[in-house]
C-alpha cells in the first residue's frame, strides 16, 4: 500500500475517528460505539494468530471483517464469542468493559455468533437443541417463517438436515436472543442464492433496528452491496478501516493481500504440457451419491489442471474418489489407461496417485518429528517394515532441500507454522515419488511467501513430467500455477477456461453465474 489509507467517510453521522495508518495505529473511540476491541492479541503455542487488533463497530451498521486466509478473522470472532480468551487487549460493549471467558458471557453481553459449522448437536432433534439452549420454539419458528423455512420439522435430527438449513436455524436461534451485535462467520458460503437473500434481508432489518452485524465473508460483491464499513486484517493486525464503496473491490483486495499480491498475481509461467504428452489420469462419467454427478476429465503428464469452485460443490468428494478414499458409484477412473479400482488409498498410492489434503489435520503427524512425517509413505509395504529404508535419508534430505524446510524449527511437526506444515505434507510425496499429485486447496491459510514457494515447486514438478490436479479457493491465483481450469458446480464440470485468459472475475462468474440462473 502506498501511503495511509483515507476514505473513512461513511454515511453514518456517528463516525468520528481517525483512520489508522497501514500498521494499525490506535483508533480513537467515541463513547457511542457498540463494540470496541483494542490491542487484542492471541497466540496458540508458537503460532501468533493476532498481534494487535483494534475493531470498532458502531450501532446500526453492517461491518465487514475482511482478510486473507490466516489473517486472524476466525480467531478474532472466536474471542468476541467467548470461545477463546485473548492474551492481551480489552473489549468493551456499549462503553463498558467485558470479560468474555466462555460463550455464555458473550451471549450475556449481547453478542451472538453464527459459526461456519453450525453449533447444533447432530444427535439431537431441532426441538431438543432449542430446549438445550433455552430458546423458545415459537420465537424461532417466527424467524424461520420470515426466512422461508416455515415447514421445518422440529423432530428431525440435526444431522439429517442440510447445511444451509442448519445455518439458517442457527441464525434464527441467535436472533431470538435479540443480540446487539450479530456476528456471521462465512454464513453465505455454500448457501443457495435465495437463502442468501433471506440472510441479507435479516441483516438489513437488524441494522434498521439500530443494532449491528459483523459480517465475515470472502465474497467481495456482498461486501460492496451490504456493508457500511469494513475492517481489513492482515497477518494478525488491522491494516485498514474504510467504507467499501469508497475503495471498490480492487481496493479491498489490495488491502487484504498487500503489495506482494500484485507480484504474485502478475507472475507468468511457461506451459510445460504438449498435446503429445500422455494422458496420465482420466475419469469417465464418475458419480458418487449426489455430490459428483458425472464428471469426465483428463490430465496429461506435465500439466497442471485447476479446479475452480465455490464451497461445497462436490470437489471434496471428487478428490476422495480420485485418491482412492472412496469408490465411485459408477463410472471409471483410469491411471495410464488402466482402471484404478481403488479400495483404499493404498491402491491409489501404489499407482502413483497421491493426495495433499487441505486440512493439515488429515495429513500431518503432529507429535512426530518432521523427518518421520516426510518418510512415512516409504513403509507401506510389509517388506519394508523390518528396518529403516536405506534410501530414506537421501529421499528425505532431497525433499527438505527442495522445499527449504527448516527441520530445526520445531521438534514436533504439529508446532510448525501452517506454511511449513503444508511444505511437509507436499514434501512427503517428493520423498516417496509419485505420478499424479492431487492438491486440495494446498495454499489455504498460508502466508504469501510460502504460497509462492509451493506454486514454484508445483511448476517445477510439472516441468519434470508430473501431472498435477489442484483445487484452490484462491481463484485469483489459479492463473499463476495452472495451465487450464475446470469450473465445478453442483458436482459437475460446467466450464473450462485456459489459464492464460482466466481471471478471478471470469471464474467467479462461471462458478456463481449458474447459481443465479438455475433452480436451487
Amino acid at each position, binding site marked *: 500500500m502506498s501511503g495511509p489509507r483515507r476514505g473513512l467517510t461513511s454515511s453514518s453521522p456517528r463516525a468520528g475517528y481517525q483512520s489508522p495508518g497501514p500498521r494499525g495505529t490506535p483508533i480513537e473511540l467515541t463513547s457511542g460505539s457498540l463494540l470496541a476491541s483494542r490491542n487484542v492479541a492471541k497466540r496458540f503455542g508458537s503460532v501468533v494468530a493476532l498481534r494487535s487488533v483494534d475493531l470498532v463497530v458502531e450501532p446500526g451498521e453492517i461491518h465487514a471483517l475482511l482478510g486473507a486466509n490466516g489473517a486472524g478473522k476466525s480467531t478474532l470472532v472466536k474471542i468476541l464469542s467467548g470461545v477463546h480468551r485473548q492474551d492481551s487487549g480489552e473489549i468493551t460493549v456499549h462503553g463498558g468493559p467485558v470479560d468474555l471467558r466462555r460463550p455464555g458471557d458473550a451471549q450475556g453481553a449481547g453478542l451472538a455468533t453464527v459459526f461456519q459449522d453450525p453449533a447444533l448437536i447432530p*444427535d*439431537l432433534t431441532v426441538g*431438543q437443541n432449542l430446549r438445550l439452549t433455552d430458546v423458545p420454539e415459537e420465537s424461532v419458528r417466527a424467524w424461520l417463517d420470515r426466512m422461508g423455512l416455515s415447514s421445518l420439522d422440529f423432530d428431525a*435430527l440435526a444431522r*439429517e438436515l442440510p447445511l444451509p438449513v442448519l445455518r439458517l436455524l442457527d441464525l434464527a436461534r441467535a436472533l431470538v436472543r435479540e443480540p446487539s451485535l450479530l456476528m456471521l462467520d462465512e454464513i453465505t458460503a455454500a448457501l443457495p442464492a435465495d437463502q442468501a437473500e433471506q440472510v441479507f434481508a435479516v441483516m438489513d432489518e437488524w441494522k434498521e433496528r439500530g443494532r449491528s452485524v459483523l459480517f465475515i465473508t470472502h465474497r467481495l460483491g456482498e461486501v460492496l452491496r451490504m456493508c457500511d464499513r469494513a475492517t481489513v486484517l492482515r497477518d494478525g493486525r488491522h491494516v485498514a478501516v474504510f467504507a467499501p464503496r469508497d475503495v471498490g473491490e480492487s481496493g479491498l483486495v489490495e488491502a487484504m493481500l498487500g503489495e506482494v499480491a500484485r507480484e504474485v498475481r502478475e507472475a507468468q509461467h511457461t506451459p510445460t504440457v504438449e498435446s503429445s504428452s500422455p494422458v496420465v489420469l482420466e475419469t469417465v462419467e464418475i458419480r458418487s451419491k449426489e455430490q459428483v454427478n458425472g464428471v469426465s476429465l483428463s490430465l496429461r503428464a506435465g500439466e497442471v489442471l485447476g479446479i475452480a469452485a465455490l464451497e461445497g460443490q462436490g470437489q471434496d468428494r471428487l478428490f476422495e474418489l480420485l485418491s482412492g478414499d472412496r469408490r465411485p458409484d459408477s463410472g471409471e477412473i483410469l491411471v495410464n489407461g488402466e482402471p484404478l479400482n481403488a479400495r483404499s488409498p493404498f491402491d491409489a498410492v501404489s499407482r502413483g496417485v497421491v493426495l495433499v489434503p487441505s486440512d493439515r489435520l488429515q495429513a500431518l503427524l503432529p507429535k512426530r518429528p518432521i523427518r518421520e512425517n516426510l518418510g512415512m509413505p516409504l513403509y507401506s509395504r510389509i517388506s519394508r517394515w523390518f528396518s529403516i529404508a536405506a534410501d530414506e535419508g537421501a529421499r528425505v534430505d532431497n525433499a527438505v532441500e527442495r522445499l527449504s524446510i527448516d527441520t530445526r524449527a520445531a521438534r514436533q511437526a504439529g508446532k510448525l507454522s501452517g506454511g511449513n506444515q503444508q511444505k511437509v505434507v507436499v514434501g512427503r510425496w517428493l520423498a516417496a515419488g509419485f505420478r499424479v499429485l492431487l492438491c486440495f486447496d494446498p495454499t489455504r491459510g498460508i502466508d504469501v511467501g510460502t504460497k509462492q514457494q509451493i506454486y514454484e515447486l508445483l511448476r517445477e514438478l510439472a516441468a519434470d513430467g508430473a501431472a498435477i490436479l489442484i483445487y484452490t479457493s484462491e481463484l485469483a491465483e489459479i492463473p499463476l500455477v495452472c495451465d487450464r481450469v475446470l469450473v465445478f458446480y453442483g458436482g459437475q464440470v460446467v466450464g473450462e477456461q485456459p489459464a492464460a485468459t482466466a481471471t478471478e472475475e471470469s471464474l467467479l462468474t462461471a462458478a456463481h453465474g449458474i447459481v443465479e440462473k438455475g433452480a436451487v
Partner: protein
Amino acid sequence: MTVIGERSRIRKMDWRRWLRRHGWTVAAWALLLALIGFYATLIPRFGAFQISSIAKNSLPLVYLSVAQAVIVIAGGIDLSVGAMLVLTNSIAAQLMVGQSFPITLIIALGVILLAAGINGGVGWIISISRVPDIVVTLATSFILSGVALLVLPSPGGGTSEGFRAMFTGSATGSGTNFWPSLVVMAIPVGLLAFWMRRSRTGLSLYATGSDPTAAYLSAVRTARAKVVSYAVGGAFAALGGLSALAITGSGESRLSTGAGFTLRSVAAIVLGGVALTGGVGSVVGAAAAGIVLFTLSPVLSAMGIDPNTAQVIQGALIVVVMMVAGIVEVRRQRSE
C-alpha cells in the same frame, strides 16, 4: 425423508421414524422377550418363580449398565463402576446389619449420595486434570476396591428384611413375587430416561457426548455435564451394590466380582445401542441389554451347556455383535 415438508404428512411418518431412531432399543427388548420365551420352553415349569429370579438377580447388572450408559452417553467411560458396586455393597452391609427397615432406607439413601459424590469427584478430576477417563477410572477402581476391602475384610454384614423384600419381593431373598423387582428397576431407570431427554441438564449430557465443540459453542456447560454424568453413574452403581446386598443378604468385597461386572456393563451398553463414542443411545436400551446378558446364563445352562462353555459363547457373542455394530457404524459414516 422429507424434513421440510407439509405438517400433515409428517404425522403419518412418525411411526417409521420413531422406529428408526429407537430401533436398537426396540430390538433389545424384542431379543429379551424372545430369550425369555425360549427359556420358558426349555424348563419344565416356567412361572412366577423364574420371572422373579431373573428380575431380581439381574438387578445389579442392569443398574451398572445404566450407570455406564449415562457416563458413556456424555462422552466418558468408567472402568470403576464394578468397584463402586462392591464398595457401596460393603459399606451398606456393615452399616445396615441389625437395623430396622426405615433406618436401612436412610442408610441406603446416604450410600447413594456418597457414591454420587465420590464418582462426581472422579468426573471432576477427569475434567480438570486432562488425564483420560480410562486411566483415571482404572486407578480409582483400585482405590475403591481397596477401601471396600478395608470396610469389609471378609464377607459379612447384613441388612433388614424389609430392605431385602423391597428389591427381591421376599424377606428371604427368594420367592415368587416379582413385582417389587420390576418396580425398583423400572422407576429409577424410567425417571432417568425421561430426565435425560427432556431436561436441559439431561440434554446437555447428550450434547457433550455427541459434539463437545458444538455444545461448548452453544454455551452448554460441558464440564458440568461430565461431572453430573459421573455422579449419576455413581448413584446407579450404588443401587447396584444395594440390590446385590438385598439379594444375598450379606456383603462381599472380593475384587473379582467387581472387575467382572465392569466388563459386562460395557458389553451390555454396546448391546443396548449406546455408542461408545457418545451422544447416542438410551438407558432403557442399556437396561434391556443388561437383562439379556444376565439371562444368557440361565438359558445356556438350561440348554445343558456347562458354565465355562457358556462364558465362551457369551464372549464370542459380544464380539460378533460388536463387529456387526462396527460395520454398521462404518456404513453409516460412509453414507453421510
